């Protein structure tokens, strides 16, 4: 055999380890610094001045910031739920049926993914203006236009993930289920859905993260009064990044991580189907 190291042997090479380290630093250092500096006792937030939780308190009392934060969470949750359902249905339709305009349908579905976000934002804005979408509505309803916009660009991602998952599904499982006396619905509930579940969770998480941090489309579809977290942060940062922004961002990161962990726990194989 040759003296060349095998694929795993490379991890013993110094340069490779350094490279790996550099990648991790590049990826995670900004986030770590963001979190660390949320505890920084300094207004200008450039050098470390000591530990404090003041800015968490301050962020908490910053009513517009909290409102934007809540808006973002509400939009993300609703948009994720709707996109997951629509995306899953689209994926099922594409997976299960053959119909005349299928390639066209498939292309049209993927369009929101490839269209530049800015175009989509402008298009949605024009659309809402054209149909006369009411802009002055009480709170939860005022989020509707943004939510619709988010669903429009999130569901194709869900559809693609779920569709990819379904490729490996053995159709005879469904036939076996019906053969054993299960109705169409029981077959879906006990056989198809459990198989789809990891795809649904992955797709849903993807939709959620896309919605949480969306700036462009939100910016174009929000009414005059409505602010979401990313938009609010942007306007705050324009006047200098304070630890307050860091604090709120850290909270968002924590929420995202918690949701991901919950999703992964739900996905544990032995938790599937307690019929």
């Amino acid at each position, binding site marked *: 055999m040759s003296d060349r190291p095998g694929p795993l042997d490379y991890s013993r090479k110094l340069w490779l380890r350094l490279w790996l380290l550099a990648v991790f630093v590049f990826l995670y250092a900004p986030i770590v610094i963001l979190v660390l500096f949320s505890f920084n006792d300094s207004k200008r937030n450039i050098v470390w001045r000591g530990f404090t939780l003041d800015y968490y308190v301050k962020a908490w009392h910053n009513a517009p910031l909290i409102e934007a934060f809540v808006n973002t969470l509400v939009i993300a949750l609703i948009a994720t739920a709707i996109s997951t359902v629509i995306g899953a249905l689209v994926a099922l339709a594409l997976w299960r049926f053959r119909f005349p305009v299928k390639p066209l349908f498939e292309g049209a579905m993927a369009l929101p993914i490839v269209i530049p976000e800015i175009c989509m934002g402008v298009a949605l804005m024009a659309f809402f203006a054209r149909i006369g979408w009411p802009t002055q509505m009480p709170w939860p309803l005022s989020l509707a236009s943004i939510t619709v916009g988010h669903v429009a660009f999130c569901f194709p991602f869900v559809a693609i993930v779920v569709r990819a998952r379904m490729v490996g599904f*053995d159709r*005879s*499982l469904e*036939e*076996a*289920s*019906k*053969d*054993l*006396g*299960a*109705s169409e619905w*029981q077959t879906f509930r*006990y*056989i198809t859905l*459990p*198989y789809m579940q990891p795809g649904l969770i992955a797709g849903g998480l993807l939709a959620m993260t896309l919605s949480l941090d969306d700036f462009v489309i939100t910016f174009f579809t929000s009414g005059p009064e409505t602010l979401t977290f990313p938009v609010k942060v942007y306007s705050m940062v324009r006047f200098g990044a304070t630890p307050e922004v860091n604090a709120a961002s850290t909270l968002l990161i924590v929420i995202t991580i918690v949701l991901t962990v919950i999703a992964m726990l739900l996905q544990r*194989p032995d938790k*599937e*189907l307690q*019929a």
Partner: protein
Amino acid sequence: MSNGGRPMVQIEQVSKRFGNVAAVDDVSLNIAANEFFALLGPSGCGKTTLLRMLAGFEQPTGGRILIDGEDMATVPPNRRPVNMVFQSYAVFPHMTVADNVAYGLKVVGVPAGEIGPRVEQALAMVRLEGFGGRRPDQLSGGQRQRVALARALIKRPKVLLLDEPLSALDRKLREEMQLELVRLQQAVGITFVIVTHDQEEALSMADRIAVMDKGKMLQVAPPQELYEAPNCQMVADFIGKMNLVSGRVTGAEGTRLTIETSGLGTFELDRGYVPKGEVGIAIRPEKIQLLRDKPNGELIAWPGKIAQLAYFGDSSNIYVELESGLRIACTRANQSRQDSVAFKVGDPCWVAWQPGDYLLLDS
């Protein structure tokens, strides 16, 4: 069964077309209650399609299917009194063995208290006691197959459909499972319809066999009849090995025919009917005697020399080239350890058979 001798399955002029392809073409067939019935035929001949029409996964484009006297045209798969064992087994991967077996009872609302014992019983029937807690990926192919069997049998169907249930198993396991299936069928008293392209499997297991080709039903008969009296060249060729020569009817006196063949001369034959024009003459290889000297008596004998030997252990195939150039295969059981070396390639010999061993086949 108390259905007054009515067939369990009645297939009446059933056809199934996929676009231009007639996967099943005008098939009529009755299957009796309690019968072990095999559908046999080459790949693509429509066996699976016919079975799927019985299960309700395909709708016939012509004709009708009755099960236990009831027309199945409008009955969906989940309401038919039949269950199917799929070629891929289709064991639910996310459920334990016990949950798989219980599934068919749960979905129709059988009380939980009744399910447990019946699952135990079904698992015992296929000899999988103690496997209830396992997941399908912890089972061997043969075990998965038995889970699929138990899952179908627990429903107590009137007809059990099996689509090449043994084709994924190795030879030894397959032979074991063949015996097992026959034992099960006798134990549960359910009509079995099994699809196979393995003729030995069909011959050894089934009460009756239907041979299909290109969507058509060629012959339906018990194994022995199918083997000894095939009704056409295709069946003769498909079931077992066969020496086939083409012939021509040159004269007929009642049903007593004079047949001129290419390679086996001209002889007379009476099979009780008069075929038209070209015919096939066939002899099974194991009916042919291989001799060193010309036999006397009423045997038909031809001289030739050994052209090729193929040794299979329990038997050998010996190919003899006649003086006319015709090659005749004959099978000899290797009854003693020396027997297989008795003939060598090039040895002169005689092949002989009884006149009654000729098969007369329409082309």
